């Protein structure tokens, strides 16, 4: 149940952000992160960004996700 998916912030409006990954867009809360910025890669869980990833880390994680091996 602690599943989380890496996505990129493309738009910020107050405490909410639009995140995108592989053409999929979602609106999520960003109040659980300090200093969330546009173009940040973040891990999304239950509709909220819970952790920031570096671009490199996000790419690695996404590649794993694409292989179908990423469960967390």
């Amino acid at each position, binding site marked *: 149940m*602690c599943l989380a998916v890496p996505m990129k912030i493309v738009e910020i409006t107050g*405490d909410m952000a639009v995140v995108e990954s592989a053409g999929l867009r979602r609106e999520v*809360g960003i*109040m659980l992160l300090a200093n969330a910025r546009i173009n940040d890669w973040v891990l999304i869980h*239950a*509709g909220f960004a*819970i*952790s920031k990833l570096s671009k490199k880390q996000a790419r690695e994680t996404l590649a794993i996700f694409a292989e179908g091996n990423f469960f*967390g």
Partner: protein
Amino acid sequence: MAEKTSLSLLAERLRNFPARPRTKIMEVCGTHTVAIRRAGIQHLLPAGAKLVSGPGCPVCVTPDHFIDEAVALARLGVIVTSFGDMLRVPGSRSSLEQERAAGSDIRAVYSPLDALQIAAATGRETVFLAVGFETTAPAIAAAGMMALEKKIANFSLLTALRLVPPALKALITPPQGDAAAEPTAVPQGDAADTEISGFLLPGHVSAVIGKQAYGFLEKHRLPGVISGFTAEDIITSLLHLLEMHNKGIYKIMNNYPRVVRDHGNERSRTVLAEAFAPVDAEWRGLGSIPASGLQLRPAFAVLDARRRFAIEVEAAPPRAGCRCGDVLRGRIDPPACPMFNKACRPDRPLGPCMVSSEGSCCAWVTYG
């Protein structure tokens, strides 16, 4: 492919590792249980080493009483919203899925924000079943704050949130006498098998609480490794654990630094602590554990569905025959339960460890 080669080398290293006899590693997190079984990592363990599942599947550890409360709410005619996994869990008399079939308005959602949106759109009383660990609790706290800010007065929470470190503490320091809630006796001669040698620690819970939250393990002379969810993550974490166990090193290692900061996510913890305070809580299989649950603080009590609807539910009778409690303590493997894959199967589960896709019993049947 270079990656495959490194993975098969890692697998080989694990298979040939000179593990001490009766080494027992507990994977705490249900998402790890599924990842391990799906990748077949249990077959790569060296002789002498064994993996057992722990109490890290929220659906599995939630007591029957909570389902009974949710059913009672649904029967009052309110909209009950929940993460999908909870719907099939049988309470003592009914499940949410059965109630939905009987006409109650029960909706599966991905986020508490979806529940908030349902409340705003319908104007009807909407309850969100707040189940989960430290990964999820800050999101629920934030949704609660938004409900208050936006004055969405028809939104409330039925809480059964749980904290991971107190459950691990309870597992390694069992109470005197048999204070465990469920009367499932440990089989004779099992005692030596119950000792845990180290913990594969949850990745995303740790992203919030950080490495320091597990400092107590070192005092109990137990190693712990925070792990990600790929086969490579898990195998390297197991190698670290086996090595620390062999050498008598009792450290907490962060093997998931691409996501987990050592100090966790302070902002998430602040939001969580603003809305919730620790409270003693009941766990299936582990009984009542001090300060292991979360209750809404007085400033948020208006969101408490138990207060708002004054539901009263009788104490749930013990679940006959189901040994989910022993599975959650790592005392038995699922096939030791007489109902496993016979009376209790993924397509018609009797116990919560078979209902949840992350439950140990379900993972054993699905992936072997």
